[in-house]
């Protein structure tokens, strides 16, 4: 694959979809959470970690993948799920806790699973790394295609699981990519206060992996780096640690005003979507009109998913008692 106009349009579309999705969720989220904030209140209870600003990472990496590839990620999964093509209606319904949701409402926003597109997310920091490596191993043993990709935050690198899994990937030369979304913050803690090295991709040499760092939160560059990593993985070239500089435009989760991001650091909180839109128009990949049409279509689609979710029934209480064990 190469960075064709189609790929770029597709990436833009995916970014717009993810943003519309997060925007609609945000609106829903605040219903009944004012004036008194409570995680548990309103139609969309629980913690909500939106992906505002990180859309280029999901879009760029997923555009370089094939259907067989397997993704795991963490507590901030929307942009990746959307980019991967997780069914928008079932995804929304899951986040609304409905019977029609991907997991019938058992999982919720941090636990998004869609086996049809080989996608999983879960909420403990760095916990998806081992599973993604194991999925890659499984395919290798089965002689089937597919590489493992795990997305983590820059803060998650400091979890021991990162070290253990990267080493295993290196020792067994697994077809694997660790994508580190460096949005500079883990909750309120800046990368510089938590991490003894500036670029986590530099750690790759310690693990017999290849390191790549992409700055600028630029989907085109992310795509290109991901493609190199994917090719490497598919051709026996081993694993890649791909660190991508991105931006978390809002707080850690809804309700965090993010007031600790001040001064110079605010300069990095730039919205990548209008920039990419501008570029695609400037380069005649989109026109103002086609861009607007695309945005309208995507917003309609997202609104429909929201409506579908809101109108879906809640699960039966008894559903809490099944799916603990497979039989």
């Amino acid at each position, binding site marked *: 694959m190469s960075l064709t106009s189609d790929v770029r349009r597709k990436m833009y579309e995916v970014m717009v979809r993810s943003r519309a999705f997060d925007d609609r969720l945000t609106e829903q989220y605040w219903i009944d959470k004012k004036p008194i904030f409570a995680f548990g209140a309103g139609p969309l209870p629980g913690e909500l970690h939106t992906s505002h600003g990180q859309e280029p990472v999901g879009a760029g990496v997923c555009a370089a993948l094939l259907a067989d590839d397997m993704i795991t990620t963490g507590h901030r999964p929307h942009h990746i799920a959307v980019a991967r093509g997780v069914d928008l209606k079932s995804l929304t319904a899951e986040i609304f806790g409905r019977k029609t949701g991907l997991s019938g409402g058992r999982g919720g926003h941090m636990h998004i699973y869609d086996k049809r597109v080989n996608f999983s997310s879960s909420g403990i920091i760095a916990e998806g790394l081992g599973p993604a490596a194991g999925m890659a191993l499984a395919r290798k043993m089965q002689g089937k295609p597919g590489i493992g990709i795990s997305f983590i935050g820059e803060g998650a690198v400091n*979890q*021991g*699981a990162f070290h253990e899994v990267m080493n295993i990937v290196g020792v067994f030369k697994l077809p694997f990519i660790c994508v580190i979304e460096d949005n500079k913050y883990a*909750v*309120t803690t800046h990368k510089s206060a*938590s991490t003894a090295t500036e670029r986590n991709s530099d750690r790759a040499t310690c693990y017999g992996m290849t390191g790549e760092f992409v700055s600028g939160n630029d989907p085109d560059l992310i795509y290109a780096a991901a493609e190199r990593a994917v090719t490497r993985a598919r051709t026996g070239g081993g694993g890649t640690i791909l660190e991508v500089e991105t931006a978390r435009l809002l707080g850690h989760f809804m309700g*965090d005003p993010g007031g600790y991001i001040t001064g110079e650091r605010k300069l990095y909180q730039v919205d990548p979507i209008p920039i990419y839109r501008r570029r695609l128009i400037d380069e005649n990949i989109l026109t103002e009109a086609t861009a607007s049409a695309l945005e309208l279509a995507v917003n309609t689609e997202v609104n429909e998913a929201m409506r579908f979710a809101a109108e879906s029934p809640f699960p*039966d209480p008894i559903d*809490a008692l099944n799916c*603990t064990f497979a039989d």
Partner: protein
Amino acid sequence: MSTKEAAPWESPTLANASRTLTMCRAQREAVEWEMTNDPNVFMVGEDISGFGGVFGTADGLGAKFGLDRVIDMPISETGFMGLAAGAAMEGMRPIVELAYVDFIGVCFNALANFAAKTHFMSGGQFKVPMVLLTGTGAGYSNAAQHSQCMHATLAHMPGIKVVSPTNAYDAKGMMHTAIRDDNLVVFMVHKGASGVGFMGPLVKTSLADVPQGDYTVPFGKVKVYREGTDVSIVAVGLAVHHALQAAEELAKDGISAEVVDLRSLVPLDRDGIMESVAKTGRLVVADEDYLSYGVSGEVIATVVERDPTVLKAPARRVCVPDVSIPFSRPLEYSILPVASRIADAARAVMSNDRGKGRV
């Protein structure tokens, strides 16, 4: 941070001059007092210096005591639990925050095999005075990995004291006790009762008048919240408040329920449990942790290894029925030990109906 910008994890301040506090505010006073009076006390955890941690227990302490005593850590729980244990072995008294007890699986060894056993393995040479402050519980749709209680997971391992206050007075007094204790103390607070901002309306029965200065509440004594004669509802954590609500309901039916808060799982006040059950002759245990191999079995066994004949009816347990905590509200509430489930269990015990109400 200005009031307008207040992060939701800040605890709402109650009427100004009042000394009626939430648990998290009360705990914070104990931590502040100890840090002021003992230079060996310090805090470690994630996101505590600026924002006081998820419970607000460290609220403002970073600014007051500086980043050298309120230390923000990378997301490296094994690393900093071990670090805290080592510091404790050298005479410091760390208070470590682990926001959600659900994360304990990434650092269980450092706690249960190292911090908890060092005193024993060293034949008493080393002490490990450290407090692990952690949040428990469900009820706000935070799903399977951010809603657990895991009371028994910690209480089962030797060498760990495990406490769980349910009101502001106890929270402060037990925090003083915990910090002054020479052992690893796990201090579990249910998010839903702590009074932390992001959990919405306060649980009234968790508020209490709290003395200004320091005082201690000893571990290993149950607290009888409400006396009764027909059935003992023995509970821990938020379930205590559910039990109090259930007792109100039951009173309307003419059932007099005694509500016993364990407060401390290790040491466990077995005499206190027995005293109540011997009096009422009936037992319901309410616990938001998983049912099997947990607190509920231990409480029942405690009675039965003393005297099974005190029980006029089978004991009942109201716990999470050995499933993961579901996200969706109706699913979640169906498996939590809410007041209605507790009341149903008590009624069943009263009618000695052995078929219904058991999960």
